[in-house]
C-alpha cells in the first residue's frame, strides 16, 4: 500500500506517494532519478550507497523510505552548492583520488559526513570511519590524501 512520505532531500522539502517498505536507495535511484548513490553489495558492506540522514552517514540499501520520513537526506547530488563544489569533492579532483569512480559518491559523502560532524577528527579517526567504504581500483592512497586536504580546508587551516 502506498503512503505519503515527506522528507527533506538535498535541502528541498519533498512529498512522495510510495510503498513505505521500499528501499531508500532504490527510491532515490528510480523514483527520484538521483543515480549518484550506487548499488554495490545490497548488504551495507561496501558503502557505495552512502547518504547522510540528519547528518549521519547511512547505507541507503539497508534503510526503508519510511525510515527517513520527516528527516533530512543529503545525497552526492546535494553536496555542491549553487554550482560550487564541496571541499571534499574539490580535494578528490585535485588529488586524482579516483579511478573507475563507482565507489566515489559513497566515499565523498561518508568523508564529508565525518568531517561535518567533527572537523577536528584526526586522520586516523576519519579513516577508521572510512574503513567500511570499499574501492576495488584501490585508489586508497589518493583518497587518504584528499580527505586530509579537505579536513584542513573545513577546519579553516
Amino acid at each position, binding site marked *: 500500500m502506498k503512503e505519503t512520505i515527506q522528507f527533506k532531500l538535498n535541502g528541498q522539502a519533498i512529498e512522495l506517494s510510495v510503498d513505505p517498505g521500499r528501499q531508500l536507495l532504490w527510491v532515490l535511484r*528510480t523514483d527520484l532519478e538521483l543515480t549518484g548513490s550506487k548499488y554495490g553489495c545490497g548488504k551495507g558492506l561496501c558503502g557505495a550507497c552512502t547518504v547522510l540522514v540528519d547528518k549521519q552517514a547511512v547505507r541507503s540499501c539497508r534503510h526503508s523510505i519510511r525510515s527517513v520520513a520527516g528527516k533530512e537526506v543529503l545525497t552526492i547530488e546535494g553536496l555542491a552548492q549553487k554550482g560550487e563544489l564541496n571541499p571534499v569533492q574539490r580535494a578528490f579532483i585535485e588529488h586524482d583520488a579516483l*579511478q*573507475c569512480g563507482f565507489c566515489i559518491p559513497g566515499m565523498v559523502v561518508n568523508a564529508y559526513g565525518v568531517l561535518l560532524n567533527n572537523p577536528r577528527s584526526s586522520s586516523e579517526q576519519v579513516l577508521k570511519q*572510512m574503513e567500511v567504504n570499499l*574501492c576495488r581500483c*584501490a585508489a586508497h592512497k589518493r583518497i587518504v590524501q584528499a580527505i586530509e586536504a579537505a579536513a584542513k580546508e573545513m577546519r579553516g587551516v
Partner: protein
Amino acid sequence: MKDNSHSEIDVFDACLERNFQDIANPEAAFPMDRRDFVKLLGAGIVILVSIPRLGAQQGGRRRGQQLPDDLNAFLRIGEDGKVTGFTGKIEMGQGIVTSLAQMLAEQLDVELDTVEMVMGDTDRCPWDMGTFGSMTTRFFGPPFRAAAAEAKAVLVELAAERLSVPRDQLRTANGAVHDHAGRSITYGELTKGQRIVRKLDRKAVEDTPSEFTITGKPALRKDAKVKVTGEALYAGDIRRPGMLYASILRPPSHAAKVTRVDTSAARKQEGVHVVEQGDLVAVLHEYPDIAARALKAVKADFDLPESDLNQDTIFEHVLRSSPAGETVAQGGTLAEGEQAAEQVIEATYLDGYVAHAPMEPHTALADVQREKTTIWASTQTPFRLKESAARQLGVLPEKVRVITPFVGGGFGGKTSNRQALEAVRLSKAVGKPVQVAWTRAEEFFYDTFRPAAVVKIKAGTAASGAISFWDYRVYSAGQRGSEQYYDIPHHKTVVYGSGWRAGDGGHPFGTGAWRAPANNTNTFARESHIDMLAARAGLDPIEFRLQNLKDKRMRRVLEAVAEKANWKPVKSPSGRGFGVATGIDAGTYVAHIAEVQVNRRTGKVQVKRVICAQDMGLCVNPAGAELQMEGCVMMGLGYTLTEEIRFTGGAIHDSNFDTYKIPRFSWLPEIETVILDLKEDPAQGGGEPAIICVGAVIANSIFDATGARLFRLPMTPERVKEALSNI
C-alpha cells in the same frame, strides 16, 4: 569540390560516396548506414584516416567478422574548435579517457581541455577488439596519434588555401594555424559551416618525443568532476521510458539442473511481469527492489549433483585434468644443469580462485526494437557484445548499437557480456527496455575467476651462485609471465593448459582473464623460488638476482627500486621483513621492494611499505601511470593475503564482501613509485604490470621477517601460522 595536386577535397554531404570509395575497404571501415553516420557526427570537419594493420597489431582479426587490417580511426573538430576523439576502447578506471585525449591534444596542438573522448559506442567509434591486455596505449595509441597528425596536416592545407600562404610557412599552436605575418586562423574557423572530408596523399609528420609538450606531463583525470558529483553515468544509471528491471532465478550451483519452477505466486503480484523461457526465468517490475522481492515468491527445485571438489582439493584436480604441456622456452639440457648444481631446490606453488569483484556489478539495459536495438552495458568488449546480441536476435550486426557508459571496474571480468545478453532476451520477450543488474551474489556466482593453478619448479645453483638450471611447469594458470628472464644456461618452461581461456574443462565454474592473467601466479612462483635460491646460496636477494641477470632493462629497473628503497644488502632471512620481486608484463618491466610486519601469534601480516619501479617506455601521463601502479600494489594485497573463492563443487560459498575480503583503508601501506624516464622508448602497458609482483614480494618479505616460506596464495593468517610452525 575540387582537386589539387596534393589531395582531394570534398564537401562531406555532397561527395560522401566518392570519398568513401577513395578509402581502402570502405564497407569494413563504416559498416553502418552512411546517413546515420553523418547524423551522428553532426557538424564539423570529419577526418578519415586510413590506419593500416591495427587489427593485426591487436592480436589478429576474429574469425568470420568484418575486421579490416586498415582500420579507420576517427576524430572530429567542431565549429567551436572542440575536438572529439573516437575510440572503441572503454574507460573503467584505467585513465585512458585522459591519456588518449593527451595524445590527441599533443599531435593536434590544441589545449587538453578542448578534447573530449567518445568511447565504446559501436555506432560512433571504430571497431575495437576490447579493452584488456594493457593494449590501449601500445596498440591503439600509435594509429590514434597518426590520425591526429594527419588531421593537423589537413588543417594546415586548408589554412594554406584560405590564407594563400604555402603550407611550409605555417605553424600550428593552441588550436589555430599561424603564419609569419602574425595572421592566424583557428581550427574552428577553418571548419566553420562545412563538413569536409579529405585524404592526405602523403604521410603526416608526427611530433617526436623531444617536441612533446603534453605527453609525458602529469594530467589530472578528465572524468574526475563528473565522478565526484555523481553525474557520471554507468550502465545502471540509464533510464528509458517504460523500462523494467529484471530479477532472474539463479541455480544454487553451477552444476544444478532445474527440475520444477512455480511462478504462480509471483504472477499474482501487481505490476510484476514474468518471463519463462527455458533456462531463463525472470520477474520484472518498474522498480528493481519490487522485482527482487517478487523473485522470492518464485519456487524452484533443482537437481544437485554431489561433488566434494573444494578450494583445498582443487589442486590435485587441476594436475589431473590439465592437458598435455607445451614447451614455451628451452635452452641447454636440464640434466647437465642439474649435474653442475651444488644446491637444488624443488617446490610446488599453489594459487586459488580469485574474483574480479568490481564495485559495479555487471549491468546492462537493452531496448530491443525492430529497426534498431540499443544496449547500454558495463562491458570491456562492446563490439563483441554487438555481434553476440545480433546473433542472439537473428539480425544483422548493423541493427545493434552498444553504448558503453563509464564502467565501474573491469579487471578482465567484463568481457563475456552474459548480463547484457540476458537483458536483450528479456527486452525482446516483454517488448520494453529491460535492465539486468546483477546482485553482488550473482556477480560472485557468474564471475570468471582467476583460475586455481599449480606451479612446479626444480632449480639449482652452482657453487659460484650462478643458477645452473631451471625446470618450470605451470598447470592451468597460462603462459603469460611463465618465461624466466634470468641468465640460466639450462632451462625449460612447460605450460600445461591455457588456464584463463575457456575450453580446458577442468574448472567447476567459469574462469577468465584477471588483471595480468597468469602472470600473478607465475611471478609468485618464479620470484619465490629465486628468493629461496638466493637464501640457500647465502646471498642478498638483490645481489643474487643481479648476478644472474644480463637483461639490461631488468637490471636497470631492479637497481632503480633498490636505490629508491636505500637497500642495504644482507642475506635473507634478516629479520627486517624486507623482500624483493621482479617481473615483466605487457612489455613493461617492474621491480618491487616491500616491508612487512608479521604477528607471530595471530599470523596476521601488515604490509608497511611497498616501493615499485617501472620501465614502461614512454609514459604518456605520469600522474595516471602512478595511480595505476598504486592501485596495482593495493589491489594485489588482496590476492596475496585474503582473497580466495571457497566452494563445494559448483556452489560458490562467497557471495559478498563479508566473507570475501578485499583491501581496505586499514591495509594501506606507504606506497612509493618510480617511473623510469624513457621518452624515446615505445610506450608499454601500464594498467597491469605493477600487480604481478605483489604475491612474491610479500612472500619474500614474510620469509625475510620470520624465516617461514609460504607456497600458497593467499597467505592467510592460518597459513602463515602453519608456515611458522614448520620452521
